[in-house]
């Protein structure tokens, strides 16, 4: 499973990181630091929850 993030549209809600700071690393200013994440096995549910938590709806889960 992969996560894709439209990083340019991130407004720094940090709601994704509130679900999982490991999966959704933020930069010093509180914006998402990555555009694509390979979800480690076992973290799929967290990844889906983190994606749903984004009020901007810019995190997309790509199922395998």
């Amino acid at each position: 499973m992969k996560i894709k993030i439209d990083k340019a549209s991130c407004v720094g809600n940090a709601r994704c990181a509130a679900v999982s700071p490991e999966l959704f690393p933020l930069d010093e200013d509180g914006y998402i630091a990555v555009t694509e994440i390979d979800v480690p096995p076992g973290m799929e549910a967290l990844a889906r929850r983190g994606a749903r938590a984004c009020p901007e709806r810019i995190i997309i889960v790509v199922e395998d």
Partner: protein
Amino acid sequence: MNDVSTNSPVAQRPAHVTDAVTYDFDMFGDAAYVADPHKRILDLVKNAPPIFWTPRNGGHWMLMTHSANFHASRDTEGFSSEIVPQAMIKAMMAKMPPGSPHIPQPLPITIDPPDHTAYRMPLQRAFSPKAMLGLQKSIRELAVDLIEKMKAKGGGNFVDEVAEPMPVQIFLKMFGLPLERQQEYRTLVKEHMEGNQNHDPRAIVARMLKLTSIMRETVLERKENPQDDLISMLWQSEINGKPTTLADLENYCVVLFTAGLDTVVNGISHGVLHLAKNPDLQRELRANPEKIHGASEELLRRYTFTVPLRRIAKDLNFQGVEMKTNDRVMLFLPAADLDSSEYPEAERYDLQRQNSVHIAFGVGPHRCLGSHLARLELQIVYEELLARVPEFRLDPDKPVTYHGGHVVGPDAVWLRWN
């Protein structure tokens, strides 16, 4: 039931506004709204068009659905935050005689991208989740202190005792302003909140000038003697590659004052009011304090209370509705978060909600800068209140009254226990 006498006069309807999208609602004076705002919002969500134009308060659009608020907030070219265009402000400033006082502006709220980004960046790190963790301890100490003082009195008006002093003191602390002058700032906050009803631009400018004059001494002092506070940090920042000026610093003071104080006061008050009316919820949260975080989020959704303003910057057809340049638009976020197509049984306060992702802090580039701070303040107050004060309820002798406007909320919440 709508007492028309409290409503503002009716404005002439522009030709592009059709009957089907006209609906009479006064967001400042509507009697049912001011009697119980969120009850009236639920009624509007059911009975008013999803996007409507109201003739009140000069005439403006109201966006009711989640979808309308979401998309309008993200379309900064169509929906401008420059209620007065920046180009016009610059031209006006250029015409003022030399030596006139700087008229502060609440930037970045009232400026569109790309300049918006330049003004917001210096603040971003200071309000990041990481920076807020460093404030957690002092917020908790402050909350405990205020709650214990109210507890010793055996009851009281929660707004005056806790909700209002709390964000003011945090503001002073973050800015590095002298706590001894707390009373002056609290008076200004009170005037600001009361001024919510009276949107005379001259009164607003007068209050801003009063604020910047109270702060000026400390602001100038920090330029020479930087300390570990927000003012010193902002002096060391750049906007569009240029070092910040006194005018920039004053703009920042004004924006954080206007955006970060009465919002928190109203947010905490809505939450505590709901808790006071729901002893079962109090019991559940006292027994399971780990649920307070989710409970605080659901309170923000159920009682979303801020109404940002936009100006249409080009003629457009928005979700089937014709809007013309310079029309004014209210992002009626309280209705967006009660949209049942997004939140089934939206009127229910529900800790188990599948979708609990609300937009109480807005959407798009202007999304609340202070949301991490606000969330911390709200959660800590609920935690400490529930841990320290026994089951509380509303004082039946002192009914709750509310104000409408851009920040909707209770004027006073009198609590009792035992």
